[in-house]
């Protein structure tokens, strides 16, 4: 292979290349600057570098047809890859804003923190654009291993140490189980190409009852690994403890980037399911399986969130519930379902980061993330409260916010599928779809209660004694960066344009 051939290969992976160089640069820079400048220097360099990678993701997203050129067809350039690269890199940039704001990680060398975040995002980018099981597994493990260390970043804090222990054990078992499933995946199909494997898997059902059983087992084993990443019931056990114990910027990262990458992986494995014409594949009961998982996940998340006293823990259950809403999109085998899922993930990024931003500032000032500590802070930080309020009603799905548009699309999709089934004469399936939509709406109503509990504590409850609360320019600017898109994206056409642009 000549040098120019290697250069041609690298054309499809410019963002990943930038991230790789950035990891080395940030570690090098951290050795040169004194400890007190470490956060600003490393944070700004990583922010700038990630923005550059984001720019490359737009300018050179890789064209369909370039696949054969990139690492022996291991990297693909379809719409899922293009969209998720943008989403993940946006999330990574936001994570560095969190790092620059949060006081929790002060006192530690920040070069490590930046390198770990960048490593996780690098793994996630390869994960979502892989068409080869080797790259898929390596990407997933790179993301996971960096996340384990990030969760335990505050190594002198007991909660953080406990969080990383639980994460590494649950994560290790989940990925081990998934790998075991993938080995049968390979055994039955004889290829490592995910696209070919997935097609074969979804068609296995034609091979009689024993093949059908094998296909179901494989799907279940693989779901253990991917479901762990997206915090889907029954693989959610790690979520609340890790969200509570990890430093808040890491929690925000896990809630958005790690979960987003998990959905990318799931879409990657099921991509034939969403292709334009796949009538034969729908017989595998994928809609029913994911419908049940969606309802269980969102109901569990919302019901348990009601009685949480810690905001980070509450947001963990809320993020479980949101995984449930997103899983609704997996019940319909159509390209339009893919659009609804991608749009919701995009909106989810802004509203979740917005909520976590305010939590980071409050934890900085108050030193605690329990709801009781937040009492009476609205009057002292009105701008932050307004931003949090916007994000919370968006998470609930009330207009005029982007969360409403996202939920509307998902529910409309499910109801539309129900009407189609009704017209086709499949009454039980139609009833199932209507039940899914109803469950989604009811769950949104439940979630309003616990989101508003936070707002009520901040506005109406009186704080005991003086709270050292206030807001400065950086606090407000950050809150605006996340809250304004949450409002503005109610006008969703630009995002849909972006999603369609990635399809090209």
């Amino acid at each position: 292979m000549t040098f120019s051939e290697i250069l041609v290969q690298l054309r499809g992976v410019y963002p990943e290349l930038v991230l790789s160089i950035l990891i080395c640069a940030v570690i090098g820079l951290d050795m040169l600057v004194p400890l007190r400048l470490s956060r600003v220097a490393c944070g700004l360099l990583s922010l700038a570098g990630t923005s550059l990678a984001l720019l490359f993701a737009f300018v050179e997203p890789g064209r369909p047809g370039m696949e054969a050129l990139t690492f022996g067809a291991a990297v693909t350039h379809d719409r899922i890859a293009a969209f998720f690269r943008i989403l993940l890199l946006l999330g990574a940039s936001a994570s560095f804003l969190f790092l620059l704001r949060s006081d929790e990680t002060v006192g530690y060398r920040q070069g490590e923190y930046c390198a770990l975040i960048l490593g996780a995002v690098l793994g996630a980018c390869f994960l979502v654009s892989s068409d080869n099981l080797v790259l898929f597994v390596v990407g997933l493990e790179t993301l996971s291993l960096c996340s384990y260390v990030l969760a335990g970043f505050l190594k002198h804090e007991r909660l953080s140490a406990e969080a990383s222990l639980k994460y590494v054990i649950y994560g290790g078992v989940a990925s081990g189980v998934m790998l075991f499933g993938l080995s049968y995946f390979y055994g039955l199909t004889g290829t490592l190409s995910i696209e070919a494997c997935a097609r074969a898997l979804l068609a296995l059902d034609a091979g009689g009852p024993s093949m059908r059983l094998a296909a179901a087992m494989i799907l279940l084993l693989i779901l253990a690994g991917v479901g762990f990443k997206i915090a889907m019931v029954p693989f959610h056990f790690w979520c609340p403890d890790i969200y509570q114990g990890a430093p808040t910027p890491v929690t925000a990262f896990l809630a958005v980037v790690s979960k987003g990458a998990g959905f990318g992986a799931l879409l990657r494995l099921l991509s034939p399911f969403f292709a334009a014409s796949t009538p034969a594949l729908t017989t595998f009961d994928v809609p029913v399986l994911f419908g049940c998982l969606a309802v269980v996940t969102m109901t569990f998340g919302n019901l348990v969130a009601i009685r949480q006293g810690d905001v980070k823990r509450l947001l963990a259950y809320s993020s479980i519930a949101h995984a449930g809403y997103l899983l609704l999109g997996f019940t319909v085998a159509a390209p339009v379902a893919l659009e609804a899922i991608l749009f919701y993930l995009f909106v989810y990024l802004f509203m979740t980061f917005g909520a976590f931003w305010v939590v980071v500032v409050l934890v900085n000032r108050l030193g605690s993330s329990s709801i009781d500590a937040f009492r009476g802070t609205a009057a002292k930080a009105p701008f932050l409260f307004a931003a949090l309020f916007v994000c919370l009603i968006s998470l609930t799905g009330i207009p005029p916010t982007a969360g409403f548009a996202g939920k509307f699309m998902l529910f409309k999709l499910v109801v539309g599928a129900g009407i189609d089934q009704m017209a086709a004469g499949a009454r039980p399936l139609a009833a199932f779809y209507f039940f899914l939509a109803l469950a989604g709406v009811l769950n949104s109503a439940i979630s309003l209660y616990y989101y508003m509990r936070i707002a009520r504590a901040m506005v109406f409850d009186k704080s005991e004694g003086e709270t050292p609360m206030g807001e400065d320019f950086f606090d407000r600017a950050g809150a605006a960066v996340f809250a304004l898109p949450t409002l503005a994206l109610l006008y969703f056409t630009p995002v849909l344009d972006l999603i369609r642009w990635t399809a090209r």
Partner: protein
Amino acid sequence: MTETILRQLDVFLADPTGLHTYLVVSALLFVLGLIACMARRNAIGILIGIELILNAAILNFMVFWHFRGGQATDSTLAGPMMGIFLIVLAACEAAIALAVLLNLYFNFGTVEVDSIRRMKR
């Protein structure tokens, strides 16, 4: 139950080095690993369980590749390639997990998972 075991034995005796034998071994490794993860209260024990699960997966990849014709039908060496990558990943995972456990021991003075429970359930 007895009948199933006898049938497995028949298959084994008919072809002791066949695909079937290896698949049973890897399934046993997987189940033992899973049991270790669930039953062990010591974090090191759980870690060993995870390694067993990973080894079951690696064995499967190698075996499937071999019995699908090996190098004669697949010149890209898909199975061994996956196996080698998984060995490296297992080593990485063990390194990270041991670092986490060491840090845990500094903080709590133990690696028994039952005694490490600060957060409310």
